[in-house]
């Protein structure tokens, strides 16, 4: 019985962040009734992958980050693999830097998010420009990045609560 519960708890620790990622990806596409906002809608999956890779990397395996990104690509209707690439890069980079970031206060972690999301936004802008053969206006991307950086704080607070719930069960 205890072993079963333990296995369920382990499965929840991996499954909940993954399902949450799929749901957050969908939330970016819900009709909010504002075309202006929908254009600069921040990525909600990037903070999720960043947070869980930083604090609970075992809960966010590479395959999960890739699958969430691919799901988002399907929702966008653009090139398959773009968001998957962004989230896999986030997972890989943050995993390599987590020992440094973990010892820092939350504000530094937030700055780390701002930096990596800025780099990824530039990368996405460049890849999208090559893919569509079009120089995209930078302003929607800057607004997209700014909103995403601002959204990280409340999202991280929410993730922290879920994190506590999942790891209290042990």
């Amino acid at each position: 019985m205890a072993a079963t519960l333990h296995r369920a708890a382990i499965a929840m620790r991996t499954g909940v962040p993954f399902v949450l990622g799929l749901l957050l990806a969908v939330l970016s596409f819900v009709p909010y009734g504002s075309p202006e906002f929908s254009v600069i809608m921040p990525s909600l999956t990037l903070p999720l992958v960043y947070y869980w890779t930083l604090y609970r990397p075992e809960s966010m395996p590479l395959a999960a980050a890739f699958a969430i990104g691919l799901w988002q690509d399907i929702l966008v209707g653009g090139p398959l693999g773009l968001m998957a690439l962004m989230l896999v890069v986030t997972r890989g980079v943050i995993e390599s830097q987590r020992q440094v970031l973990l010892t820092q206060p939350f504000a530094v972690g937030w700055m780390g998010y701002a930096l990596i999301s800025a780099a990824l936004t530039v990368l996405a802008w460049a890849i999208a420009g090559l893919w569509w053969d079009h120089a995209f206006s930078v302003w929607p991307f800057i607004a997209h990045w700014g909103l995403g950086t601002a959204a990280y704080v409340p999202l991280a607070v929410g993730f922290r609560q879920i994190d506590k719930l999942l790891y209290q069960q042990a």
Partner: protein
Amino acid sequence: MRRSGGRAARTANPERGLAQRLPFAIFIAVSLGLLIFSKIYPTLNDQVQGALIDVAAPVVDVLGEPVTAIRGFGTVVADTLNGAKKVETLRAENERLRRWRDVAMRLDGENAQLRALMRVSDEMQIPSISTRVVSDPGGPFVRAILLDAGVSRGVGKFQPVMDKAGVVGRIVTVGRQSSRALLLTDLNSRIPVFIRRTGDRGILVGDNSDRPKLAYLPMQSSARIDDEVFTSGDGGIFPAKLPVGVVDYVDGPTVRVRLAADLSRLDFVNVMAYVPLEKPEQSAVAQPLETLPQGSSVTAETGADRPPAAFAAPADPVLPSPSLVPAPRPAVPADPPAFPAVPAPPEGTPAQPAAAAGPIEEENPDETPPPSQGGT
């Protein structure tokens, strides 16, 4: 082959480092491979996405319900707060539209007579279905929306999508139960249009801004603010004379159009069962569209293959549908019998915009129409 000592020192356990990095490299390679694949094989990419949106659309639909409910509640509150003002506005608009109805009825009669005289092919009714919009674009890359209707309801690739005021975009990906429409604002959107006042033809080019550009206009084009823009039907991709918007910005050769469709309130749209002339995917749209109780349909003149007669909705005997556009027409005297004999144009030729006959003398709908001659 010499190895640097520094590199050896950095990697204490190379095998372990490789084992950790290999999955990362594999996922990066797969992601890049997918990107390249979707670039090289766009049709295959469309087919894959068509199969996948049937999974995505219902999920977005369900999760969007609370947001839609909150939006609806907000609209109700706002309408309640502005109720008195809104009633006054609607009364005035109703009065204006009543006068326009009389004018439209008179012109409709004249138009039918002139068409008979000139032996112009009849206008056809293109049936359409009404479907729910289940998603927003959701990001800076693509301006597209997911619709709650797919092949099972007769939706096919390239079919025009409209809201009550004008063209919204066209279908680009079709699944069994869902489809994706590319908005006119997307940078991949190109549709042939004309300016009603001048008859100048051009291409409406999306550039991811909310006001698409009007490109390839004639050099001597005299487009000006508030000129109405309609689809021209050139190339047979779109039916002719669907309302697109009004010219909103003119600066030398740069002309931008404010869309008639309200992209901020796309709750329901109409998908027209129009079969494009030039696209090979016609088989995908050969199925009849489901006829809705509302019987929403638009009238358009086109040279395209007609849908089966069984699906052609009868013309509205009193009022045209909201999407019906007054055709560009030469100025005609009030008395039809005095109409001069004009050689009939070739069968199926779209009506020529009025540029050849000078500026159209049709009334501006925003202004008060002249007193009705044949109205009730």
